[in-house]
């Protein structure tokens, strides 16, 4: 029996076999029954809504969490990794969604962290840097081996994570949504890497929300819902609709395509005019303007300048026809500008505070009477927004950190709606949120625009931009290079966004 199993391993390429994996946190069941089989030489897509248990399942495989039940077999042998180091030794590496890098060390030092190159008792810095440069150049990533991690953008950090995993993976590489912070060109590079590694016989598990992008390269797909594996099949056998159906367990209407408002005035009111070096545009009431560009094109920086995080040294910002000095977020908020950041966990929410307090945080005056914050009014306000934006939370007293990504994003939006912001800057509004929530967020943006809000939307996902925006500004190297109508194609946008030859 025993050598039968090992014989089976010899002839079958099964790398990893998970059966009925369970994991509980306190009273919450993260995984009820996770099944997954990954073969050598395949790219296996792992999909599911946020909270479906994908990351938990992968953390168990990578030795970061211990399972509470079920069976795991690695290369035919029963396996139980008690630490990431153990999983490493078995040949498993994981690229994490959230950055697990040491901020004050360099790119090279992070990639070699825990397995430093040494020369006797001393670190062999030169070898680590050379090796890192080789790795970066091989994949054409826009990072420098000697940069400190805290100087990098979220997308660049993600690329460092990928380099780190590549450097050590030998049999199985797990990507936990690596492309969610990357623009088109970078994610294409990541996909090429995945294909190359597959062709060398490695197993690849890929967690993502961007199904369309994965379709050309993935071999199989496994779908999780509410902590259970609900379906597993060759990717080509399932249509996008079928996959979404398995993910949410119900029909979802296709993502809403924005239509120009029928009763739009001939001359819409100008809400915001931005004139900075290389950047000139106006934003009108009732419109959604998209901003496209590659990673590092300056899109996030543009939002931060308009919002007063990094005030511009020269240039001007005009709000409702009046030149406005925006030197701090307070100035911006006072002028009616809101920024929904790309990193909601770090800058958008106070995760330990209840949903109620997060919603009222930017406008406590609205619930303050005679100097005292009225808990009852706060609750009423929070309940109103919970209903209006259908925020799924056990109650408004639940800590924001317990909500799913999509619901967290709605809390951030609610905060600015309560503040009555009329100029809304959305930086990657759909990052890391599931299909159903994404549709809801876009529908909400559409509704806000119809009610007269002026919206600027930065996104790395061109199909999203083309669906949601009325016109699209394309940025490159910190400047706006062109403006395209909603009828533009993805190719057109990419041509302008990429460095012209």
């Amino acid at each position: 029996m025993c050598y039968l199993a090992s014989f089976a391993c010899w002839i079958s390429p099964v790398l990893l076999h998970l059966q009925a994996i369970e994991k509980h946190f306190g009273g919450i069941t993260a995984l009820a029954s996770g099944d997954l089989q990954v073969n050598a030489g395949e790219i296996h897509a792992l999909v599911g809504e946020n909270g479906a248990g994908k990351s938990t399942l992968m953390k168990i495989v990578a030795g970061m969490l211990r399972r509470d039940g079920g069976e795991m077999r690695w290369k035919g042998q029963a396996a139980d990794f008690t630490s990431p180091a153990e999983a490493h030794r078995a040949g498993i590496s994981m690229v994490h969604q959230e950055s697990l890098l040491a901020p004050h060390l360099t790119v090279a030092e992070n990639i070699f962290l825990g397995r430093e190159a040494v020369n006797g008792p001393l670190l062999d810095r030169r070898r680590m840097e050379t090796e890192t440069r080789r790795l970066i150049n091989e994949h054409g990533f826009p990072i420098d081996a000697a940069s400190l991690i805290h100087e990098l953008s979220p997308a660049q950090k993600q690329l460092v994570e990928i380099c780190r995993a590549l450097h050590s993976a030998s049999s199985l590489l797990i990507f936990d949504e690596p492309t969610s912070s990357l623009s088109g060109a970078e994610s294409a590079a990541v996909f090429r890497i995945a294909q190359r590694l597959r062709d060398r016989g490695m197993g690849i598990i890929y967690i993502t929300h961007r199904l369309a992008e994965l379709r050309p390269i993935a071999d199989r797909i496994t779908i999780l819902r509410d902590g259970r594996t609900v379906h597993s099949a060759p990717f080509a056998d399932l249509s996008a609709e079928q996959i979404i159906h398995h993910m949410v367990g119900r029909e979802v209407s296709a993502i809403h395509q924005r239509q120009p408002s029928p009763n739009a005035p001939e001359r819409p009111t100008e809400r915001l005019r931005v004139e900075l070096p290389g950047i000139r545009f106006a934003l009108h009431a009732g419109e959604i303007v998209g901003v496209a560009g590659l990673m590092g094109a300056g899109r996030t920086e543009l939002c931060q300048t308009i919002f007063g995080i990094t005030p511009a040294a020269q240039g001007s910002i005009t709000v409702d026809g009046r030149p406005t000095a925006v030197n701090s977020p307070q100035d911006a908020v006072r002028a009616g500008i809101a920024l929904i950041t790309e990193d909601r966990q770090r800058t958008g929410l106070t995760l330990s505070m209840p949903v109620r307090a997060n919603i009222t945080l930017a406008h406590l005056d609205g619930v303050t009477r005679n100097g005292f914050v009225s808990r009852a009014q706060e609750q009423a306000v929070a309940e109103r927004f919970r209903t209006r934006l259908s925020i799924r939370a056990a109650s408004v007293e639940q800590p924001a950190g317990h909500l799913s990504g999509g619901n967290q994003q709605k809390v951030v939006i609610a905060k600015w709606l309560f503040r009555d912001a009329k100029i809304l800057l959305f930086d990657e509004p759909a990052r890391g949120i599931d299909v159903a929530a994404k549709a809801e967020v876009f529908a909400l943006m559409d509704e806000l625009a119809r009610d007269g809000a002026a919206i600027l939307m930065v996104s790395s996902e061109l199909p999203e931009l083309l669906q949601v925006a009325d016109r699209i500004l394309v940025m490159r190297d910190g400047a706006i290079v062109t403006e395209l109508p909603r009828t533009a194609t993805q190719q057109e946008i990419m041509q302008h966004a990429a460095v012209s030859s």
Partner: protein
Amino acid sequence: MKRNAATWQRLLPFLSLAALFIFLSIASPNFLTPTNLSSVVRQTATINIMALGMTLVIVSGGIDLSVGAILAFAGTIGAMAIANGLPIPIGIAAGLLCGLLWGLVNGLLTTALKIPPFIVTLGTLGIVRGVTLIISGGLPVVGLPREFESLADGSFAGIPSVLFVLAVCAILTHVVLHSTKLGRYTYAIGSNKEAAVYAGISVGKYTVAVYAICGMLTGLAGMIEASRLMTGQPTAGQGYELQVIAAVVIGGGSLTGGEGSVIGTLIGAFIMGLLSNGSDLLGVNPYLRQALIGAIIVLAVAVDEARKHRFRQ
């Protein structure tokens, strides 16, 4: 079931206080007497009032190591004012103002120069103590009128009057922390400073306010200490910062910010008070007592970390 365990751990400071109280009542016949209990209250009032201010600072994600020195400065200046013939209430107000000013200095240095509060207040700890010694010539301020004694030693209806002062301060701090913008922002800044900035809160202004309040409460504590000793002692309050921070942390305050409460801090301060009173009554070596307090701080934080770790996932 597991959630119950977390609740139990949250109640741990209160249960420890109750257990300590019961233990001392049994172990020492001299503990449960009106004289002893009111002396516990009088001894802990200073630490307790300072700990209220420290609660605000710690909830905001900061720390103030200079409170012991500020206590001495305020007590010395206030005592000098009274000894030079100014009315007692004016003298007390002078003490509060001194504390407030040093709090402002701490707050402005951390926010304007962006120096971590640990370093700023380590610096002001030295500066304030030095200035106090220079002003007083290193000598205690004496010649205070007898009536000044009643601030620390007076009683009302058999209850020490400092208990009323403490109660008023505690209620005010609790209200500020829970029902005002300042309090809400203090929690928000301590929990996620960047998110507070991005919400358009003037983080700097509120941080300065928090240190100023802490300084002012420390100034009040300084006047109570001066009244208790009936001198303005330029060397008073050495090592108090440790006890004050310990009271907040034992009461559930988190040194990473965003957590802490007035009730917790009061419990923490009384635990410290009972430990010190109990070791006096039971004849515990005072050197051992100091080591014991240090060990309890580590234990309290360890228990709190265990609770949070279980809760986090």
